């Protein structure tokens, strides 16, 4: 299994994925850093410089929005790494001499998944911390729980990774990727519906949100992550005004059992993927 994992990471390095991802992220972090420094020199409508509280509040909002963009990028990266990793190897025939070695197909899949999960999580951690560091350096603001938020974003990426692997045991890389991204988008929408249901006390909408989170816990992980990025004062302000916080903010994280469910979901779907890959004809 470890040989397959090492080979997978080696492939990402040789094919310059790691270099490309790091360069693109470095540019993105630099651009957002440039944006954050300009916050310090902004003025309100009366020409007065923004106060420290205003700057940090705006930075908090921007950090959440960047995190949202980042969660989407992570989901897409996870899908576009996982789906071709298996499906393309099956279609091209690269896998044939490998699966006839004394190694179970589940071990081959585990090796690939382990390697890609490691790469995606390392990327999420490095780029997330870099972004928070830039925000801190430019504006003095740091989200309340950056490591916890990154951990949930990593879980979100792993959920998408496993989904893409499961789909690619039977579908082509392109088809599997499209289905996974559509599911991701659908769950995000269902999460918004659930959030509206909670605000307007609509049971059907609340249930739609819960069911979607159970079927694909990416939105739940996003909500967990965003909750730990929001300053307590923002949550208190939304609660005090009794307004719907919109799709990018949450007033309370999903229940703690959701984390457990997500881990069970990942394990169960991976088992399904391993079984599907083991019994399929190559």
């Amino acid at each position: 299994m470890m040989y397959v994992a090492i080979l997978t990471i080696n492939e990402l390095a040789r094919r310059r994925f790691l270099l490309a991802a790091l360069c693109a992220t470095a540019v993105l972090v630099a651009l957002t850093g440039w944006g954050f420094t300009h916050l310090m020199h902004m003025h309100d409508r009366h020409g007065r410089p923004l106060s420290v509280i205003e700057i940090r509040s705006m930075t908090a909002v921007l950090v959440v929005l960047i995190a949202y963009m980042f969660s989407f990028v992570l989901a897409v990266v996870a899908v576009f790494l996982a789906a071709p990793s298996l499906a393309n190897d099956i279609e091209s025939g690269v896998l044939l001499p490998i699966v006839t070695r004394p190694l179970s197909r589940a071990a081959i899949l585990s090796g690939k998944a382990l390697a890609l999960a490691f790469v995606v999580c390392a990327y999420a951690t490095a780029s997330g911390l870099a972004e928070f560091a830039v925000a801190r350096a430019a504006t003095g603001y740091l989200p309340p729980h950056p490591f916890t938020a990154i951990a949930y974003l990593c879980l979100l990426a792993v959920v998408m990774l496993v989904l893409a692997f499961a789909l690619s045991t039977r579908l082509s890389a392109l088809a599997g990727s499209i289905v996974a991204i559509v599911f991701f988008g659908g769950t995000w929408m269902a999460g918004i519906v659930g959030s509206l249901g909670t605000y307007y006390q609509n049971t059907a909408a609340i249930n739609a949100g819960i069911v979607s989170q159970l079927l694909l816990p990416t939105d739940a992980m996003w909500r967990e992550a965003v909750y730990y990025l929001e300053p307590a004062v923002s949550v208190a302000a939304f609660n005090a005004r009794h307004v719907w916080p919109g799709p990018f903010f949450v007033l309370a994280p999903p229940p703690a059992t959701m984390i457990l469910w997500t881990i069970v979901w990942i394990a169960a779907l991976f088992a399904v993927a391993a079984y599907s890959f083991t019994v399929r004809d190559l």
Partner: protein
Amino acid sequence: MDCANAIETRGLAKTFGETSAVADLSLSVARGEIFGFLGPNGAGKTTSVKMLTGLIRPSHGSGTLLGAPLGDRKTRRKLGYLPELFRYQEWLSGREVLRFHARMMGLRDAKREIERVLDLAALSERGGDRVGAYSKGMQQRLGLAVALLGEPDLVILDEPTSALDPIGRHEVRQILRSLKTHGTTVFLNSHLLTEVEQVCDRIAIVLRGRIVAQGTIAEIIGIQDVVRVRAQSDRALQPILERFGPVSVEGDAFLIATAHARIPELVQTLVQTGARIFAVEPIEATLEDRFLEITGTPQP
């Protein structure tokens, strides 16, 4: 099942939906022999090979490979396989591909073994190059090296010379013969009849997913010698020739089904009758003739 055999199958079948790719594959391959697996395109050869290697699950039937059930993981340590669709990680060098396979197999003296198979496949000088820079023939040589890594007991080769030039094919035939001298069993799936004829001890011909002939090449071809006689056209010769065997007319020649050992006697008889003889030549039946006959392909 007879564990003495390298391969033993009974009624293996595979259907894809409504389509039957392999209907009834029952064959025995003894240890240490080179076994040729022949058939026209679409006969089910590659599907059969994939069932043997555990890549495809049979719909019916059973079989053993080196005494273990098909698909047994431990047995794969003793199996070398070159797929028909040979593709290797093009971003690795040939040597790195072999190193990866050596690790999966748990080979001890991997470095020396890698150099041995690279040398065997005539790739030593290009072993450090990226596979992506290899020609198709070189990639097939690499596939052969991968299959021979670790001196497996059984090597299954699916069209191993399809991308090779005549020199490469000759080299592969020599490799196959050397494998036999080391007691390795070779299962050779090929449609190159001359290649099979030159190296295989026994063959099976598969047609529409069923084995229609199986045995040594002599058994498949049939031990029937033919002699072609070209003489001055004279129908009176026919009764004389019929003393040696059944006669048929082919243009201006007679074809006599008789042992080649009787040619001197045949010539002496003809001379004694005063016939004017232009040529007497022994004709060897070929595997190609027999293959075309068995598969029902019209011969030119």
